[in-house]
């Protein structure tokens, strides 16, 4: 979406694109917000053709309004509630992790976030027999620890092996790698690469703070924009693929001290978190 080019939509020929460009109309937004009468007069194009073009572009690029009742029906059929494996955590989350939602686990370093993630991964892979994608960005995941958790659930080695196979681990140590991983995930799902052992239900991102923290601070805006972009990616992923996304973050507010400077990501997390869970909170 953006620049007008031939073939972008039916009715938009190369000639039209050239003429419009010579009058300063280069993008879809320019055309849609221009005064079409004036454009028709100046460019010598037919007013009717321009109006039709505007209608087609709007139909193609604007968002489609959904009816609340239809959305509700769809949600009822596609939402699954996944137990985390920890009883009191399930109670806190109102029965468990909801697919289609982003649930953030936040806390100070060393408060147990990675352990909760590993526990969720083990439970979903073994107890619910569904696939998990674990995006590790700070090296906190060790297969031996997951094996330990699985061994505590079942002595059967085949079951343990099966569960381990359902956990796919990807490492991403900076934000661009992480965005790539999420993009690849979408690609894989859209090509319907299905494994025989179940569908992907949980995406754990441990941790988001590790990839975002180096970008923030000072007067740079790029870091914040990238963080908002990552947040948006995670939210749309949860919704589009019907998975539960579980990012972990750092809960610390750093006062940067000058007016007009945005607060550290501790405050920004609120933009995307739907139900933050603090590991210290439950007993």
């Amino acid at each position, binding site marked *: 979406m953006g620049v007008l080019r031939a073939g972008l939509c039916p009715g938009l020929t190369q000639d039209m694109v050239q003429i419009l460009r010579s009058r300063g109309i280069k993008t879809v937004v320019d055309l*849609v917000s221009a005064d079409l009468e004036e454009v028709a007069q100046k460019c010598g194009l037919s007013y009717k053709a321009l109006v039709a073009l505007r209608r087609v572009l*709007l139909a193609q690029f604007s968002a489609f309004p959904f009816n609340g009742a239809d*959305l*509700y029906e769809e*949600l009822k059929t596609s939402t699954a509630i996944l137990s985390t494996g920890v009883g009191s955590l399930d109670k806190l989350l109102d029965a468990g992790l909801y697919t289609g939602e982003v649930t953030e686990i936040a806390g100070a370093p060393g408060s147990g976030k990675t352990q909760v993630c590993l526990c969720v991964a083990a439970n979903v892979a073994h107890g619910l027999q569904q696939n998990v994608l674990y995006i590790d960005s700070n090296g906190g995941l060790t297969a031996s620890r997951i094996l330990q958790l699985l061994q505590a659930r079942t002595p059967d080695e085949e079951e343990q092996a099966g569960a381990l196979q359902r956990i796919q681990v990807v490492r991403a140590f900076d934000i661009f790698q992480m965005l790539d991983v999420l993009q690849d995930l979408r690609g894989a799902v859209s090509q319907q690469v299905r494994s025989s052992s179940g569908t992907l239900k949980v995406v754990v991102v441990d941790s988001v703070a590790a990839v975002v923290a180096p970008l923030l601070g000072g007067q740079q805006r790029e870091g914040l924009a990238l963080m908002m972009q990552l947040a948006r990616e995670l939210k749309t992923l949860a919704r589009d693929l019907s998975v539960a996304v579980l990012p972990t973050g750092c809960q610390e507010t750093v006062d940067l001290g000058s007016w007009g*400077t*945005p607060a550290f990501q501790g405050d*920004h997390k609120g933009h995307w978190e739907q139900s933050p869970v603090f590991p210290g909170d439950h007993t």
Partner: protein
Amino acid sequence: MCSDFHRAESGTELLARLEGRSSLKEIEPHLFADEESPVHGDILEFHGPEGTGKTEMLYHLTARCILPKSEGGLEVEVVFIDTDYHFDMLRLVTVLEHRLSQSSEEIIKRCLGRLFLVYCSSSTQLLLTLCSLEAMLCSHPSVCLLILDSLSAFYWIDRINGGESVNLQESTLKKCSQLLEKLVNEYRLVLFATTQSIMQKTSHPEEGPSCAFNRLSDVDVDYRPYLCKAWQQVVKHRILFSKQNDSKAGNQFSLVSRHLKSNNLKKHFFTIGESGVEFC
């Protein structure tokens, strides 16, 4: 002849514009500082940091609009534009269930049938969507309320995309604001838009240079304008939300409603329970 061509509209469009938009006066008297609000064409901004009840208030207003008249609602249609993928359908359904005297799937579905949801993924998509919303408003004359949650979602991304020029950074939002004003005036709607407080409070008592924030006498939340001037100008009412940290009740919230022209101020307290917002 050219100017006539501009203003000509079909009979259905005219009727859709003028007839059938019911009054939203009774929607929530607590929110407005003025006695006559809200009137058609009002734009209200909900401003506040995260976790202060803005989206809950939107669910409360939505529920109020879509519930049938027999259950205390206004039975009008609502268009909810979600830019943050923030809308929680299950929460809205819970609020509706608590407010209905006898809730059944049928009634809930009928209420939800009066709600239209639009998800926007970028500010250009928001602009294009607002352009195409006109057609939808013509075909649904009972839409009275437009909700935008939130207007500040694309702020940082826009600032990066605009490069170094502030005008370029703000241009899409400026066009959106103008379009919103036009839609709200022509189709006689009321718009509620939320904006996040993303600028931090300064720790020292003196103000920073060239800041243009409004001082509200007994209010804890400072308002720091960061969205474009065009938006500041179309807002008629600003409602600032904040959370009470020191009260005995754990989850008490407060809002200060301010009518920008007449400068009237009103403060209210509310709590958020299972059934949504409840004013104290």
